């Protein structure tokens, strides 16, 4: 299996970070700027998580010390290396930026890198008065980038020829909804930690989102060879962590108690995060079995 736990964590982290900013931006905008602090927190938490995610990804590569080739290449000629036969190499002296818009991994690499750069700027200089205009503009850019990031994980897998993922048009939408749900769960955790209040209908919007996610998941499972997930070696993880802990428990909690206590809200958020992690894991592993 080429892609294992490291990639599962990457799929969750990048989706969750993009989804958290996406949700916080919309929440702040649709409520007349009441959640600016929450929005700022998603930037700082997001930058830290993406940096950790990047380190994890680099370590997961077969040749980690060559990761910089994702950004730079030398000239347009390639060296031809045949094992045992040496190398015939043609290179220019100056490095060029590696920009390959057709490769989802290349696009994702650049977007996540810019995400960290802009995020650091907004985190450090975002509140400085002379830079407020620029920060406002960059926040809008960040929102567009968040959409790309939450779409990226699904596009990344669908641009393959593996069962379940390959060519699937439902996978990117499923991962977008899943990313926003994970992001909203992260917002719940952040706001509980910072003792901020989220609007009561926040939970309801998360439930609506979950219903959309369930619909997309059913379409994926019906439309693809998903036997390994629903009735094969991954079925235990799927039914226990995705269906039971991730879907049934939060729904029962929400239905039984509309005004959930602080502890219940935390359990609810963790259940959603567990669901999203295992959802991505079973899909990732399922496509390689």
């Amino acid at each position, binding site marked *: 299996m080429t892609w294992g736990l490291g990639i599962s964590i990457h799929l969750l982290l990048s989706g969750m970070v993009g989804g958290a900013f996406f949700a916080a931006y919309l929440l702040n905008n649709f409520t007349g700027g009441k959640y600016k602090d929450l929005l700022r927190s998603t930037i700082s938490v997001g930058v830290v998580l993406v940096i950790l995610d990047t380190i994890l990804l680099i370590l997961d590569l077969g040749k980690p010390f060559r990761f910089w080739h994702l950004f730079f290449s030398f000239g347009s000629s390639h060296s031809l290396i045949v094992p045992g036969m040496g190398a015939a190499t043609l290179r220019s002296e100056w490095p060029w930026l590696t920009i390959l818009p057709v490769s989802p991994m290349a696009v994702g690499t650049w977007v996540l890198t810019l995400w960290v750069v802009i995020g650091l700027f907004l985190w450090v200089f975002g509140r400085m008065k002379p830079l407020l205009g620029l920060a406002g503009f960059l926040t809008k850019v960040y929102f567009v980038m968040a959409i790309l990031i939450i779409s990226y994980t699904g596009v990344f897998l669908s641009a393959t020829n593996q069962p379940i993922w390959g060519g699937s048009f439902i996978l990117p939408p499923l991962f977008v909804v899943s990313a926003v749900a994970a992001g909203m769960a992260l917002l719940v955790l952040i706001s509980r930690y910072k003792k901020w209040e989220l609007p009561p209908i926040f939970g309801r*919007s998360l439930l*609506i989102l979950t219903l959309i996610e369930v619909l997309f998941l059913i379409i994926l499972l019906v439309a693809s060879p998903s036997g390994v997930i629903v009735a094969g070696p991954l079925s235990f993880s799927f039914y226990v962590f995705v269906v039971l802990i991730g879907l049934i428990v939060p729904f029962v909690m929400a239905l039984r108690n509309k005004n959930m206590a602080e502890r219940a809200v935390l359990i609810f958020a963790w259940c959603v995060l567990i669901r999203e992690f295992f959802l991505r894991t079973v899909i990732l592993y399922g496509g390689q079995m």
Partner: protein
Amino acid sequence: MAKTMLMDLSKCTGCRGCQVACKQWNDLEAEKTHNRGTYQNPPELSSATWKLVHFNEAEVNKKVRWFFLPKQCLHCKDASCVSVCPTKAAHYAGEFVVIDQSLCIGCGYCGSACPFGVPHLEAPGAHKGSARKCTFCIDRVTNGLPPACAKTCPAGVYTFGERKDVVDTGKQRVEALRSLGHTNALLYGEHELGGLHVMAVLTESPTYYGLPKSPRYATSTVLGHWLSGVVTAGIVAALPFWFLFKRKEELAQKKQAGGEK
């Protein structure tokens, strides 16, 4: 003119001479394997096995038959590995698809994108490393020699030459097989993925050989996938967020304005 190779699989005896010749010419190490009750050994292509005879069995007209497939990189004209590679390590060298070992970061995307499952990162039990696969013996071919597998085959499976001649040979062979009663015989690779540089004459449907009937170019729908993601983000923004938050804000403001009046 583009060099192309044709494998006439109606002639293949499964001797694995091509497999051994590939190992020898490319200096690829042997793999430690276990007896799995099949002649197919090692079980799959790997970074140290670039050519592997697949021993497929299927029932045709109530008789069990072998469908040998000497599996290797088919050097697609529209190669999925090239399109997804994030570092340009997988690239076209003339008509062939090769992986530049100095640029490959070992992400494994090429292996997932390939419709034939050819590039591999690791030999079983070894560290992941970089992706490796058949190079079409580019060092031999560019020096006027046929690939090692084609040179060594004792059954005359391989025809190596200019594409037009090879396609003509393949079509003639298909006609000959059909006249001998193999009514489903076909030439695989003339049009698939823009035209493969390793084509095959098959006596039955590609699925009997473990080949996809209609191999898919991995990034052919990538723009649509990006759009489906963005549209979903729009739906998510509109449904739970706009509907619940924005509308509620507006209602609250209207209520407040009504109260003030």
